[in-house]
């Protein structure tokens, strides 16, 4: 049997999944790697460890699930998390670790650029919000603060580029991932002159741009041999995790959106036009030359609930944090919608869309003497989902959304999906394959192989497992509290700045 393999180089782990040509999963394997926080705001990963882990997982999957059954791998498609930067020297040797999306060391540069007129026009041209996550800002930070590394760097590449170069020799980057660097003009599809000037580099110090369907050079002979893959296997560069999660979420009709919540989260839509947001709240990334993925990201998804579980969960009888979280969700169901007036702003890690305020902090509001632990549990979940809704609402100011799909470990907890449906007051479906990033990568490869005649046909083939319909009784309750949630998030700006400053002095 012929099969397609997708490789997702994610935030914490590489996930490799094998699909048969009709899209059924026939094997999967993952391997994690660490993130290093050597100082506040620093978030780094070791590119060599990521590469070795990828190889190791790939080898195990092939030897256990593919070769023994004589399946033939005919295509491999990559996806990777966005916004990573890795400086390499002229021999291709990594100059230190890679910056991950979560690295915030360029916050001063971001602040300065965001408030300038050139910052505004760079956002319009590149579609990437001006934020420390953006490779534009990270390279500018290196330019100003780490001159030695900046000067030694022959190129600034992404982790995906590094891994693909190891496998095939070429330094390439797909338009899709490139559109999340803050350096690519998403209208002309060339590196943006203003952005390059701000970063202080020439276009020659960036990888070569190719379409997401680009077939890469052959696998180097040593890897063909060690992995047992044929010379003819088609390797596609693929896209980013965010874009592929949207494709794999089956969102294609005009008025659909997809919600992804893992540790962090996002709400995204697909369209042929850019969503121009005058307040710079939304991103616009390229999926293919015809389609844009637009939306907003949040820092505070499942991670905020996990924080709550670690602090207040019952660890005496239960073994680990996953079980504790399950039990807390159980307890949350014992409170009424709206948590009897207890409200939570989930900004433990600062926030991106829609408020884009790195100083924002978590807040419980409205505590009274009747509130019990169960109210706090439910309020925490509701707060995380109000934040998702506030991104959805920002999107709705640009286009109509009538139904949504949800994916990711937090959004697909049935209690959370139902709550999302109630808050959005719209039906929300869960796909059959919970891993929508891999599903998206499969669809890309399958379209490339001619299994689907176009990417939109591919997206429409995604099957839904269940749909959660909104509960008309609870929606008005949530809306009352959401109004307060929005007002507090904006009103507390000065206080957020003050408390963040006090905290940074500790």
């Amino acid at each position, binding site marked *: 049997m012929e099969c397609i393999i997708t490789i997702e180089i994610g935030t914490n782990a590489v996930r490799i999944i094998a699909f048969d040509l009709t899209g059924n999963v026939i094997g999967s394997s993952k391997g*994690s790697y660490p993130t290093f926080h050597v100082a506040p705001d620093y978030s780094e990963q070791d590119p060599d460890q990521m590469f070795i882990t990828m190889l*190791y997982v790939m080898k195990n999957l092939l030897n256990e699930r593919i070769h023994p059954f004589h399946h033939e791998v005919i295509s491999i498609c990559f996806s990777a998390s966005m916004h990573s930067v890795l400086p390499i020297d002229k021999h291709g040797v990594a100059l230190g670790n890679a910056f991950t999306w979560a690295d915030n060391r360029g916050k001063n540069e971001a602040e300065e650029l965001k408030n300038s007129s050139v910052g505004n026009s760079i956002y319009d041209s590149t579609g990437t919000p001006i934020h420390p996550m953006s490779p534009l800002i990270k390279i500018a930070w290196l330019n100003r603060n780490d001159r030695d590394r900046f000067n030694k760097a022959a190129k600034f590449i992404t982790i995906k580029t590094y891994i693909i170069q190891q496998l095939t020799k070429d330094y390439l980057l797909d338009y899709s991932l490139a559109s999340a660097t803050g350096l690519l003009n998403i209208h002309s599809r060339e590196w943006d002159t203003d952005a390059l000037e701000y970063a202080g580099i020439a276009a020659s110090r960036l990888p070569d741009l190719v379409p997401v369907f680009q077939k890469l050079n052959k696998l180097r*002979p040593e890897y063909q041999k*060690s992995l047992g893959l044929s010379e003819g296997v088609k390797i596609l560069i693929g896209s980013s995790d965010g874009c592929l999660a949207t494709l794999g979420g089956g969102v294609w009709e005009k008025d659909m959106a997809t919600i992804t919540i893992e540790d962090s989260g996002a709400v995204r839509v697909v369209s042929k036009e850019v969503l121009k947001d005058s307040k710079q709240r939304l991103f616009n990334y390229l999926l293919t030359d015809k389609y844009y993925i637009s939306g907003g990201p949040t820092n505070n998804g499942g991670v905020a609930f996990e924080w709550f579980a670690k602090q207040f969960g019952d*660890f005496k009888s239960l073994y680990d944090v996953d079980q504790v979280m399950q039990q807390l969700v159980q307890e949350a169901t014992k409170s009424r919608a709206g948590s009897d007036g207890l409200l939570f702003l989930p900004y433990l890690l600062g926030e991106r869309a829609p408020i884009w305020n790195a100083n924002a902090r978590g807040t419980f509001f409205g505590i009274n003497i009747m509130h019990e632990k169960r109210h706090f549990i439910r309020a925490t979940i509701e707060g995380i989902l109000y934040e998702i809704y506030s991104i959805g609402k920002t999107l709705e100011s640009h286009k109509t959304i009538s139904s949504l799909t949800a994916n990711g470990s937090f959004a697909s907890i049935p209690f959370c999906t139902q709550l999302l449906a109630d808050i959005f007051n719209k039906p929300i479906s869960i796909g059959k394959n919970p891993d929508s990033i891999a599903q998206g990568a499969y669809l890309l490869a399958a379209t490339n192989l001619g299994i689907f005649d176009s990417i939109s046909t591919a997206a429409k083939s995604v099957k839904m497992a269940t749909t959660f319909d909104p509960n008309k009784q609870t929606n008005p309750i949530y809306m009352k509290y959401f109004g307060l949630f929005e007002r507090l998030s904006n009103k507390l700006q000065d206080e957020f700045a003050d408390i963040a400053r006090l905290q940074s002095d500790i």
Partner: protein
Amino acid sequence: MPHSPFKLLGENAKELIPFPHVIDIGLEVVNSIKLNSFPCLPVKNLQMYLVLDGRFNWIINSKHEVLYPGDTAVILPGQEFGGLHGHQDIGTLVRLQLRIEKIDNDGRIVLGKWSKLSKSERLVIWQILKLNDCPVIKCSYLPPLFQEACAEIRDQELGFVTRVNHILDTLLILICRQITRQAGARRDFPQTFTNLEKNLRQNLSHKWTVEEMAAMMGLGTTAFNEKVKAYTGFPPLHYLINIRISEAIKLLKLKETNITDIALKTGFYSSQHFSTTFKKLTGHTPNEFRKRNTTTE
């Protein structure tokens, strides 16, 4: 424990002649405050204190700690230790100072012949003590051990030397178990795993066993195996090979170290072992890999 500990036995106490590794042990009673009697200075030996009575404000390893009755403090050689205000507070303590022969090159604590701890146990014990940033241990089964050690030394009944040395080993073991428990591997596996990983990288030349790694996390080997597999996708030893190979790749690219040294530095038994493991994973030998990366591609 029917017997209460006796007065502090120090350097010349004849009771301590069978225990050259015990510098002092016994009760320390502070009745009055003597100014500047207890300044913050680096200690020479491994010191353990059990608070029986009173409240003690200490600086241990540059951190302010408050100890209450039942608390045990562990201070390692080289760490600074003294009173918050430069004097000892009023109260009663049991004190135990142990001589450590040395810390060997592999990061093992060397205690002397009296101790029956295995090589591997001594490695893990030292790593746990060294990494621990919470020197105050709250644990109900430590106080009886202090009392028992004192009683054995005083009563000198049959087998007391063996018993005391055994209790000292047990103290070290239980302290380390409690430290890993307080660190909460169960509560926050990812965080403690990150700490373990950091430690593995710092001691990559050591041939870590699963038992050693599990002990560092305060878990039994079965639970450790399962959790690491679920969290990383790899059995612990395979995960370790990932780290070894990724570090080796960096050294290979730097071209400053020869391949045998890289193999030993990154924890392989020999350059042969390194070479076969490396080739199995990457398809080429370390030599080929290095050659390929010296040409500009």
